[in-house]
């Protein structure tokens, strides 16, 4: 199996590594795929999470397995996305089915290519800084007060930023004290503003110095550029930002390397998944045919065979008539008779073609039944359209053909009557066409 194949192992590992860098990072154990292929129920939760994250539009993290509502929403989302095997997910939510769903999503969303393309984009310092900012854990205002430790926050509010305003105490103060207090606080804000202003001037000065120094340096070296961009200046100024950028570039290099390897091995993954898909389809149809569909198919086969037999009868009758008309034409060389003979010949040809079609349909239907009954075939021979649909189509077509034949027979009968009527005057005797059927 695939698990014994080291290349597919590596291939899945690469895919998992790439998925970590998705906009909505997906952390999945490569072994989950192996388990899913063997339809291990233990992998269902993990695969569900995987599919959920791939379909998710926001970056909310899942805590624990998906509940019933979430599963329902997930299937609905897949249905809306056009996933063709939603009915299977609804009835039987197995890890193998979810693996197929994942494969479909991987193909449709082209997520790995997206990750790769994103890694080709130049490093943007501000987005890196924003990411770092988001990493800082700030207690959520919606977090329950039981779990929330706000002592640090209170210290921060009372110490660094400013004193915590105690409304009760403030109200208890005299007006003069209140004015003094407000004057004090506004003075503090003003002082902080002055400090910020000094820092702003400082940064502006450093920027100017960097620009000046790099300009002079590059002018000496005669390079193509003569000054730094704002981002480059930032890198020069702040070693921490430089470190972050280096990390980001390393990450991008890793993505590119992993993607290139993945592209080399991608066919193996799809082959592996194809095998899994074939197993799943085989399991889907065989049990249902044995139980309920077989009698219908038998009846249909019987019907088609009887139709084909009646067509054969019609055919032989028409040949007979054709022969008789030819003889009539020889004895009576009337123009009308010739035309009729030609028309009937054409009709006959058409009937033959139709008969051939019916026969071929019947044969293919029989073949399909026999191949399904035999069991496994290779992935290349596996049916791509469900058999029940094919049976339905064949049946409809067979009925149409039968109707056409009846109509043609009727027409032929009418023509015969006309010829008989005309030839009765010439002492010709023919059997009425209605007697044939």
């Amino acid at each position, binding site marked *: 199996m695939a698990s014994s194949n080291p290349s597919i192992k590596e291939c899945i590992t690469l895919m998992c590594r790439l998925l970590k860098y998705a906009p909505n990072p997906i952390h999945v154990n490569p072994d989950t795929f192996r388990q899913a292929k063997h339809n291990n129920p233990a992998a269902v939760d993990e695969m569900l999470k995987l599919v959920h994250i791939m379909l998710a539009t926001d970056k909310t993290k899942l805590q624990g397995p998906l509940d019933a509502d979430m599963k329902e929403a997930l299937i609905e989302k897949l249905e809306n996305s056009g996933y063709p095997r939603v009915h299977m997910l609804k009835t039987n939510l197995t890890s193998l089915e979810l693996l197929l769903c994942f494969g479909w999503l991987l193909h449709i969303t082209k997520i790995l290519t997206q990750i790769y393309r994103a890694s080709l984009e130049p490093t943007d310092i501000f987005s890196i800084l924003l990411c770092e900012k988001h990493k800082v854990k700030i207690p959520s205002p919606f977090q329950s007060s039981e779990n929330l430790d706000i002592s640090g926050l209170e210290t921060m509010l*009372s*110490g660094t930023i*400013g*004193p*915590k*305003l*105690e409304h009760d*105490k403030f109200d208890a*103060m005299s007006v003069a*004290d*209140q004015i*003094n*207090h407000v*004057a*004090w*606080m*506004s*003075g*503090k804000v*003003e*002082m*902080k*503003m*002055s*400090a910020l*202003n*000094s*820092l702003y*001037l*400082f940064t502006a*000065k*450093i920027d100017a110095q960097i620009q000046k120094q790099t300009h002079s340096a590059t002018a000496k070296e005669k390079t193509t550029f003569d000054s730094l961009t704002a981002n480059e200046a930032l890198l020069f100024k702040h070693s921490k930002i430089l470190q972050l950028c280096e990390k980001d570039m390393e990450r991008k290099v890793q993505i590119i390397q992993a993607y290139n390897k993945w592209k080399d091995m991608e066919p193996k993954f799809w082959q592996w998944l194809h095998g899994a898909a074939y197993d799943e389809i085989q399991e889907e149809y065989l049990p249902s045919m044995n139980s309920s569909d077989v009698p219908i198919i038998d009846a249909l086969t019987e019907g088609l065979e009887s139709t084909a037999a009646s067509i054969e009868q019609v055919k032989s009758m028409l040949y007979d008539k054709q022969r008789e008309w030819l003889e009539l034409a020889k004895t009576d060389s009337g123009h009308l008779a010739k035309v009729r003979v030609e028309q009937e010949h054409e009709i006959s040809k058409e009937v033959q073609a139709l008969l051939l079609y019916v026969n071929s349909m019947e044969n293919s239907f029989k073949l399909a039944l026999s191949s399904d009954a035999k069991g496994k075939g290779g992935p290349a021979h596996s049916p791509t359209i469900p058999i029940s649909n094919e049976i339905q189509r064949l049946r409809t077509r067979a009925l149409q053909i039968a109707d056409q034949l009846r109509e043609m027979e009727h027409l032929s009968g009418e023509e015969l009557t006309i010829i008989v009527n005309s030839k009765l005057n010439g002492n010709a005797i023919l059997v009425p066409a209605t007697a044939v059927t």
Partner: protein
Amino acid sequence: MKTFFNDTQCGKHEARSVMIDMEPKAVNWAVQDTTGKEWRYAKSQQFVQKSGSGNNWSYGFKVHAPKCKDAIIDLIRKEIEKCDYFGGFLLLMSLAGGTGSGLGAFVGNVLRDNFPRATVLNPVVCPYTSGEVAVQNYNAVLSLSHIIAVSDAVCLLHNNQLHEICHRLLGIKQVSFHDMNKVAAHQLASVLLPIIQDKQSGSRFQNVLNDIASALVCNSRYKMLDLKCVPYMSPHTMAFNTFQWEGLAKRMFQMMLTDHHMDEGLNWRTTLTRPHGKTQRSSTYTKYVSSLLFMRGQGSTSYDLLTQFGDSRLYPTWIMPACRNSVWKTELPFRGYEKCIAFLSNGTSCVKSLNVLTEEAWDMFGSKAYLHHYYKYGLEESDFINAFATVENVIYSYKTL
């Protein structure tokens, strides 16, 4: 180092300063004093005239200042341009003479006009209570009235106190201005040398002046600062010191309570609470708007200072507990002292000295003594009245704390 000095090509550090005087004597002394040291004053940053101000505030403010204004601004701008990170101005001046008080007050105005967002901390040297200059009180009041309006903080250094410290604590028998200047420099350095409070917050760019101002002088009615240090020791006795943080903190707290400038001759009877638990009357101990403690030396960061420094009875109700008292600590020793505590406070300590100055000035003004010296250079009676009103207003504010 870079906070107060520029690097030069010859390897010597140059003080980030502009020296201004109307006669070369004091500047030359200062320059000479740096001979053989690792740093010096930049020659290009000195503004010296040869006429002097004749101990007349009016002459310095009304005559010299307008003439020298452009040159002084030019020098200040040049010095600022050398700074990567400009934190503010430390405007050092005396209150007694004509140049320090008159021109100094004018320079304060110029700084505020040209650099409105810069923090200006103004250490001023108050004259001896008697005997220095006849018109010293006029000069001091006129000068104070201006610098109170333009400076963010005014730190009062008293010649009397400096002299006493030199004489009693350092054992100097013939106290010179040079000795007193050393003590004043020691006091200022003990609070102005940057302290790394939080390594993660990038205190490399600590704005000392702004930090001090935002901790102590946020209310524009209360700008007067007082500076105290423990211990003071002569170089000979420094090797034998056995001070512990607890002892130093106790002394400093008593100095704070009794508003005493040195840890000798302290009144230990003054306490916050009486034995039976009743609060002592507020008039018997100094009250503060806010205070800042600087602990320098080994073990300072691990020592928990007495909580009394932030006792609510020492501060008005409109100051929130978090703003009352801050402590800055560093493990680095200061000027050879193994342990040192400096106390910079905004409180009623200034009332006594300001009262003395204004009362004597009022007495002189009432008898119209020496006024013609001021009137002849453009000063008017209303200017005196306004100056008195401003200083009296400050005294009143502190008295009602």
